[in-house]
């Protein structure tokens, strides 16, 4: 479908006699360019062609025939990267049948979120509208439990009737979405294996943190053994394994070091265990949440382990994050840790990642590093820095034009461009707003 469209586009370009490159060119002029890698360029021009950035700076010549967007002093950033979300795999939290972000009861490591992606999700335009061009979708253990942003209700459900009902240790495999209009958003699949340690891990491990670590190690050992003895396994000549083969298969790239473990963990002591696990098992890890990471920042930096975090986490909401601080991001960055800043997991009620980046600045992270933590850093962590995360010639033309400073609450995205193509940000929200702003004419809103 895509290639057909491209060919059709080319044919039109040829028939009109224009240069193909120019026909596909898009320029943003009069913009403040946040390049991420080469500082800020004021009154700059960004030129995109054939889905890539082809030039940027203050002296760029815009070719004749290029479509031009006048930024009027607005700011251009690379598209933001949501580094751990449920976009397109969960629609409405409390409606279980709209949720595919948990692996269920029959599968653990083998669960793979890519097969549940709904490219037509009503949340896709909401995500784009908040300046997000890439989203890493990560699974939860077991049946995804409804959670409510009303605290009373999260609490009302009392930790969930299902808590402890699943012995699935691993949540499963994550994927990376690119929010273009192709309706084929999965850019990369099987990019990480999600795993809870700490309090949640203890639950999945039968009630104890220590038990969960032992079970994880046993599962990795099984995966190694299985990888070497597939033939013997098929003949029924191996020892028994603790996990079915579809789970073991998924763990093989982890033990081989080609796929990282995404470890959700909070307490400093548990972070140390995660680092020790990585060393002992010779696997790559990424830490998520890590509210007490600042207490062991040097150890995390020395292990070259990146951290995905929410800079607003400052409450002792449970006994494993009594050390939550608003300068976790700043302290980790100063210690040399690569950090990526998260928004809310749920796009429906997203605390946008850009505002979390702003909060991190208020508590000591430089603005430059905060921007990096929502663009280039997650691109590096998730292995797409060759294509995304900065405004550089040759990178994908995945950029956002903002009417002001993107880290400010009053600003908003005016143009979202993916692959050099301006994306529709039209959402249910916007349609509802227009319907109910309509002048009274005697007809009910349903006519408008």
């Amino acid at each position, binding site marked *: 479908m895509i290639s057909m469209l491209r060919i059709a586009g080319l044919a039109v370009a040829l028939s009109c006699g224009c240069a193909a490159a120019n026909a596909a060119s898009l320029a943003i002029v009069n913009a403040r360019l946040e390049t991420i890698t080469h500082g800020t360029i004021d009154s700059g021009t960004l030129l995109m062609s054939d889905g890539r950035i082809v030039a940027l700076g203050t002296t760029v010549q815009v070719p004749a025939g290029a479509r031009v967007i006048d930024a009027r002093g607005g700011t251009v950033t690379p598209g933001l990267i949501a580094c751990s979300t449920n976009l397109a795999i969960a629609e409405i939290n409390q409606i279980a049948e709209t949720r595919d972000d948990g692996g269920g009861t029959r599968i653990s490591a083998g669960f793979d979120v890519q097969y549940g992606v709904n490219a037509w999700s009503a949340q896709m335009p909401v995500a784009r509208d908040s300046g997000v061009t890439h989203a890493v979708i990560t699974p939860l253990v077991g049946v995804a439990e409804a959670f409510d942003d009303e605290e*009373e209700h999260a609490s009302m459900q009392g930790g969930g009737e299902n808590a402890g009902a699943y012995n699935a240790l691993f949540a499963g495999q994550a994927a990376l979405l690119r929010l273009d209009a192709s309706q084929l958003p999965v850019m990369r699949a099987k990019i990480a294996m999600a795993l809870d340690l700490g309090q949640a891990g203890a639950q999945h491990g039968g009630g104890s943190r220590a038990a969960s670590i032992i079970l994880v190690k046993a599962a990795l050992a099984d995966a190694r053994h299985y990888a070497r003895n597939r033939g013997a396994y098929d003949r029924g000549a191996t020892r028994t394994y603790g996990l079915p083969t579809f789970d073991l298969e998924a763990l093989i790239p982890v033990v081989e070091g080609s796929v990282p473990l995404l470890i959700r963990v909070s307490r400093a002591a548990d972070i140390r265990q995660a680092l020790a696990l990585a060393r002992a098992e010779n696997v790559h890890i990424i830490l998520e949440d890590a509210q007490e990471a600042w207490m062991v920042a040097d150890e995390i930096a020395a292990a070259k382990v990146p951290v995905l975090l929410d800079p607003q986490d400052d409450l002792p909401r449970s006994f494993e994050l009594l050390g939550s601080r608003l300068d976790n991001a700043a302290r980790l960055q100063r210690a040399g840790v690569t950090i990526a800043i998260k928004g809310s997991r749920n796009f429906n009620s997203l605390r946008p990642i850009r505002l979390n980046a702003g909060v991190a600045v208020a508590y000591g992270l430089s603005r430059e590093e905060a921007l990096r933590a929502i663009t280039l850093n997650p691109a590096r962590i998730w292995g797409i820095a060759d294509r995304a995360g900065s405004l550089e010639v040759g990178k994908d033309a995945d950029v956002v034009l903002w009417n002001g400073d993107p880290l400010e609450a009053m600003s908003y995205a005016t143009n979202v461009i993916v692959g050099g193509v301006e994306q529709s940000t039209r959402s249910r929200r916007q349609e509802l707003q227009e319907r109910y702003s309509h002048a009274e004419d005697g007809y009910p809103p349903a006519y408008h």
Partner: protein
Amino acid sequence: MNRSLVLRATVLLVAGVLTAFAASAADKAATAKVRVPLPRPLDSGVNDDPYPSAYRPLPSQPAAIVHATVLTGTGEQIDDGVVIMSEGRITAVGDATTAVPPGVRVIDARGKWVTPGIIDAHSHLGVYPSPGVASRQDGNEWTSPNTAGVWAEHSVWPQDPAFQRARAGGVTTLLILPGSANLFGGRSVTLKNVPAVTTDAMKFPGAPYGLKMACGENPKRTYGTRGQTPMTNMGNVFGYRKAWLDAVRYQHKWETYRTKLAAGESADPPDRDLGLDTLAGVLAGRILVQNHCYRADEMATMLDIADEFGYRITMFHHAVEAYKIAPLLAKRGVCSAIWAERSGTKMEAIDGIGANAALLQRAGSCVVIHSDDTTLIQRLNQEAAIAVGAGARAGIPITRAQAIAWITANPARALGIAEQTGTLERGKMADVVLWSGDPFSSYTLAEQVFIDGAVVYDRHDRRFQPRSDFELGQSGAGEFHP
């Protein structure tokens, strides 16, 4: 029931009947000659304030904040403004020419902003405290659809570390509500955000009580899944009407009783009922209805119920669809407590839009930005900014001077404390926030927070960064910011 219990119950029953018989016989014999006074606790309404506020303002000294950009909460922005506080009250607010009396501590606020203290009109701090362990889930008495007789103040844990975080976010007053599992969740309590050992020492003096009511999915899910009523929206409405009917009857009985007593006639006192006391307080206009309600059609139904039984709804909470009936809400003078754009967590919340606040404001309706969240409560100023941005995008410009009222003056009105706080006006409580810059910026932090003129938080002075008992000796030590 075992045999000894049955026996004991029978004995009690017989004793009760005998006593009642004896009492009524005695009444008849006495015939108004000697009237045994009704013990005070049995007399509804003689003591509306059995758990009075023990709040005392912290020590303060007169202070003048000068050269600040002042948002008064009354719709005014004063550049290079002056705010003077003395003996717990605001004594002057004005431009650079405002005279500063001698001997007053002068705070030079060049480049900084001053606003009234932030008021969160929807919080569960203390009743759902941190850490959120099973033994501290004190916010929802979900044992019956009508628990109008419970009071949130009796669940508040004053050591909740979240109070300290909210204060650092500029929050000086909070409405603590019971949860939304029940049609009638119980009474709310208004607190001054000062650290205290006992909850009564946080109670906002003179603030009226509120009654938490809940529409929609939460009550029917809570009880319907148990096979009890309410199971449906019509079951919800039946439950409200039944309770209000009881309340009207209760109120009528007490009025009849008092009327008869006043006329010198003998009368049997009605049985006092704690839940009906609360509902009767609403009917009498002393208790304000705080109604959790997402959907426009449900809000309209609730207004009809209020008309049927003769009470007022003060505010709809989480009103994500308020924009659909903005003119109606304006006409009825009901406030809407909303998030900027949070929505979609459940079926009744899927029509939330960012322009909700702006559309309500344009219709002349009362907008309140609320949190219902331990993290969001720390950044209500930014939440308001998001709503301003969404308004601008929808072509509805809102000024900072207007938007600050969403988190100060308007919630004060909805809590019934607008005479005392919520704006920077002479004579009001000196509940004030000094911000490092524009309060609608992501980069801005509260530098100093004043409650009744006393410094209760100072970002740069550890002496004014109080810590909860709970956090002493723990890994974070209660130091949540640099």
